[in-house]
Each structure stands twice: as C-alpha cells, then as structure tokens.
C-alpha cells in the first residue's frame, strides 16, 4: 500500500498531463470544425509544456534566479528555456493556422471539414 502511494505521489503529474494530452488529441481528430481543431492543438501543446516543466521541478527548490543566499536549491532552468521557445513557436503556428482558416472560409464558404470535402468532390466530378 505504501509503495502504491509513493508511486502515485511520484507520478501523478505525468498521468494528469497524459489525460490532458489525450483530451486535446481527441478534440483534434474527432471534431470537424477547423477552429475547434486549432483549439484542441493548443490544448495538446499546453499540456506538453506542463510535462516538461514538471520534470524540471526539484522538491524544496525555488525559481532559478540566483539570490546569493547560501544553501539554496534551484529548479532546473533548462526546461524553462526550451518551453519559452516552444510557447512562442506555438503562438506563431496558431496565428498562421487561424489565417488559413479565414482564407478557407472565404474560398469555400464553410469551415466544417465534411462540407469542404463535399465541395471538393463536386468540383472533381465536374472537371
């Protein structure tokens, strides 16, 4: 029982993040609306960030800003740097995806995936 409790207390962050990742993945692959897909992708990205940052945490540590006090433990700064870059790249991807969704709406008149597929099939049978 003790071993199970330490197992849960030591791994609950990974499991919560995996649940969030799977919810984001479900939104991306099962919904047909393009904007909903983009929101699901954002959810997936944010949960991956939480995974990396939780791996860098040291119990009893503090933010990695050196204060000069002796005997201070700091959390690992390397995942923070990675995730800063990843957040900015994520917003760039989201902005570009939203611009593409707007252009698709202007060309096809809809942003639902199955309707776009229907219009494409009709255009193909005509030509």
């Amino acid at each position, binding site marked *: 029982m003790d071993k199970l409790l330490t197992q849960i207390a030591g791994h609950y962050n990974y499991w919560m993040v995996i649940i969030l990742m799977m919810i984001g993945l479900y939104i991306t692959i099962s919904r047909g609306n393009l904007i909903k897909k983009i929101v699901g992708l954002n959810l997936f990205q944010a949960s991956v960030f939480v995974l990396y940052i939780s791996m860098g945490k040291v119990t009893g540590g503090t933010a990695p800003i050196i204060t000069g006090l002796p005997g201070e433990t700091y959390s690992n700064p390397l995942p923070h740097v990675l995730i*800063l870059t990843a*957040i*900015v790249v994520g917003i760039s991807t989201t902005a570009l995806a939203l611009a593409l969704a707007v252009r698709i709406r202007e060309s096809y008149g809809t942003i639902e995936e199955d309707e776009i597929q229907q219009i494409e099939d009709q255009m193909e049978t005509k030509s």
Partner: protein
Amino acid sequence: MHHHLILRVIAKLLLPFILLFGLYVQWHGDYGPGGGFQAGVIFAVGFILYALVFGTEALTRIVSQKALIAGMSFGLLLYAGTGVASMLLGLGYLDYSKFGSDPVHGQEWGILIVELGVGIAVACAMTAIFIAFAHREADHNDKDW
C-alpha cells in the same frame, strides 16, 4: 463609439502604465522574470487595447503597417547583426566576450542588445498580425454570423 465612455476613459488611463510596464519587463529581464518575449507581448497588448477601444483606423494612424514590418525586420537584424559584429571583432558568431572591457561585461552588453532585438521583433510582429486580422472585411453581415 460615443457610448463606450467607461471603456475609453479607462483605456486612456491604463495605456501609459501598460507601456511603462512593458519597458520595465524588458530592461529588468536580467534581475527578475522577464526578458524580450514577455516585454514584446505586453507592448503589443497595449497597442491592441487601443485598437479594440478606439478602432483599427485610429491605430493605423499612429503606427502604419509599413512601420511595423520595418520594426520586425529591424529587431531580427539587430539580433543577427550582433552575431556578425562579434565575428568582425575576431570571435565566433554570437560570442559576446569582446563587447565590454572584460568578458563578463561583454556578456551583459550582448544579452541586453539581443533581448532588445527580440522585444522589438515580437512587439511589431504581434501588432502586425492583429492589424491584418482586424482589417479584413467579413463577407457575411452580423445577422448571418
């Protein structure tokens, strides 16, 4: 817009503080949380707030699209140019050791200049993306939306 009185007054009161806070975050990134990206986003948010309350035309009167594109390119060139400058001083690309009197000072100068380039590029990029979205006319009217 004459009926959004509270929004206009509060936006006019808050905007200088938002821009000042953006400057604080930019220059104090060395000593606390902050740095180029956060400061650039806060700057852009100040401009976006102005555009949301007073209209996009008012914002493009202050900063034109061309100025934003020039700002973006300048920020990126500042960063890449710092690397070229250190190559011209005889070191490797983006090696800041010779920018000051001793290597530690050189690193501080290099980090400051590079973060400034990042801040300018991010602020102009975010504002330009927002203006591009806001200027696009929708092809449906409000009733069909």
